[in-house]
């Protein structure tokens, strides 16, 4: 087990190096001269040279890369180009609101999807099953934007059940007042694809030989589903949740933009619009690192669900 974790961490090093290279390549090479972007219309050559010096882009590429690597490991990306706020501070203060929305979304959505999927799989092939699948396909086809625009209008403007948008300093107030509508919309949108996916996991398991054995033992169909099938289907479900877990931190930037939630997602969109490279670079690198760690944790958790996994 320890050897496994160490080996996995060891394998992360080349991946992390690759991520750093990719981001460096994108922002320091493809991204062009940031000074041009920042100086804007008043393209005074002197000013540009000044900005270039300030940003360090007049240095050779290898030196810029070295600076970038140092930034990554000292957690110091300097200041935002547009707001002059410290990048580390931006990251730390924006994560909270994002998690306030996304953690409940992930939990509720997963539980609901598993419960509904097992119910649909139980009546597989029936009219109910087929109707629900058609509804899911249709629901998945409507753009998230339409749901948000319509939901905000209906529940915020017309019915007035929730505030149209906003955020406060109090965590509790956020969770009870501002978060419910975005959470609800996110779940509503995320449920259909997950339900479809998890249903297919259950159906896959139902066709396995061991299910026939369970029936041959005389187990009632409900017990077969709730014990034998569910336990095995949890393995691909866990993989799937593991894949989505890192994006919890990115948050739904659409929700954050619409509901004025000061989270990471909105920050990224703003940064992209303003070409605020330090913020994007920092967010990308750290989220990549986080993703790798989350993936490792998920793999370790595998052992709990699947006895066949060995850490050799």
């Amino acid at each position, binding site marked *: 087990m320890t050897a496994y974790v160490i080996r996995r961490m060891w394998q992360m090093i*080349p*991946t992390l190096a*690759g*991520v750093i*290279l*990719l*981001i460096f390549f*994108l*922002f320091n090479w*493809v*991204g*062009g001269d940031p000074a041009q*972007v*920042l*100086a*804007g*219309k*008043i393209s005074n050559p002197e000013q540009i040279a000044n900005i270039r010096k300030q940003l360090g882009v007049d240095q050779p590429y290898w030196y810029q890369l070295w600076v970038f690597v140092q930034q990554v490991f000292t957690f110091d990306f300097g200041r935002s180009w*547009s707001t002059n706020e410290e990048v580390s501070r931006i990251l730390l203060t924006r994560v909270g609101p994002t998690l306030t929305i996304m953690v409940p979304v992930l939990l509720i959505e997963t539980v609901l999807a598993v419960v509904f999927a097992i119910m649909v799989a139980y009546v597989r092939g029936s009219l109910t099953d087929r109707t629900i699948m058609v509804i899911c*396909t*249709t629901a*998945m*086809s*409507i*753009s*998230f*934007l*339409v749901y948000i*625009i*319509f939901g905000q*209008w209906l529940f915020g*403007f017309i019915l007035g059940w929730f505030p149209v948008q906003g955020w406060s300093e109090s965590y509790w107030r956020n969770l009870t007042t501002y978060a419910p509508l975005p959470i609800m919309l996110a779940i509503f949108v995320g449920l259909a694809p997950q339900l479809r996916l998890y249903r297919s996991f259950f159906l896959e398991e139902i066709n396995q030989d061991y299910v026939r054995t369970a029936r041959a033992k005389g187990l009632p169909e409900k017990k077969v589903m709730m014990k034998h099938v569910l336990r095995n289907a949890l393995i691909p479900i866990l993989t799937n949740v593991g894949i989505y877990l*890192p*994006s919890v*931190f*990115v948050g739904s*930037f*659409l929700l954050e*933009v619409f509901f004025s939630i000061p989270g990471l997602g909105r920050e*990224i*969109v703003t*940064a*992209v*619009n*303003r*070409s605020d*490279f330090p913020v*994007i670079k920092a*967010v*990308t690198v750290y*989220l*990549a690192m986080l*993703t*790798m760690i989350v*993936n490792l944790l998920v793999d370790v958790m595998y052992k709990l669900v699947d006895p066949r996994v060995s850490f050799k």
Partner: protein
Amino acid sequence: MSAVLPNNAPPAMQESPGLWTLAWRRLLNDRVGMVCLAIVATYLAMMLASYAGIVARDWNKEKGVSYANPSFMAGAENLEAREVTNKDFGSKAKPVDLSDIDPLAPRYKEWEERAAKIAVTEVKRAETLPFGGDKWGRDVLEKAIKGSEVSIFVGLTAALFATLIGTVLGAMAGYWGGRVNDFLEWFYNIFTSIPYILLILAFAAVFKRGLDTIIVILALTGWTGIYRLVRAEYIKHCGREYVKAAQAIGASHLSRMFVHILPNASHVILVQLSQHVVSFIKAEVILSFLGLGVPVDMVSWGTMLAEAQNELVIGKWWQLFAAGASMAILVTAFSMLTDSLRDALDPKLK
């Protein structure tokens, strides 16, 4: 079954139906699949017609009054029309000067000139339009058609490129294994360790806006899923006896990769292509909505939705509906067609 049979039956010189023909026949039998195929084909035809300028050529013309009512609700009052007209939307005063950080600043002048040209050809404005008008009085129906053209074109092209990248890399990794596989897996790990949406935004941040760049962005970030599946298919098929038999008869590596294995993995690739068209259409809509997608002088479902956001509050629902519905119909049909394709191509039937 033994040696008695030959020579007495004249050889039927026609090829039997291959797996593709059989799959096509199964699809023909699938009523839902055929309806979906018809819908998708209609959209594609519309896209071509719009590209050729047969329909919706004048989408950018301001034909009606601001927020012109749809023809079927001609009687309804249209307060905004007067208001906006009174405000004189020819006013060129910019509210805030963002020019120092605005990357588009150099192009303002060009657009202004272009806008001026359009303004000259102003004609008498209609009170109602078939499916209503937008703020500038443009026909929403024509916008939706033109928007479909852009969105579908982006989705299709990006999906084709992503599939190409994913297939070639996946085939190489799966077939060669070893060092090639290690290298490509490293590459794959880099791309997948950055959350997808963040990856797209990071690419969007450094590229200029434009139709071609959004295709490049979607293709460069979207190949990973296809790569993974194609690689798995290749690994599976490399272990199959027919590939070993091909090796035993001396078939070259290229022949084994592309003549023997590729057709057997093609159903997976086709289904993936189809799925990616859908997801790229969705992605394009969101990017364009955020202003990171198509340029401002073009229309897509995403830019329509961006405009529609504020229209709903003042009761002008038609642009939201037009964009949302035309997209939903296409995507539903496309997804269900994908399901039918998957069923029809299922090689389990041997």
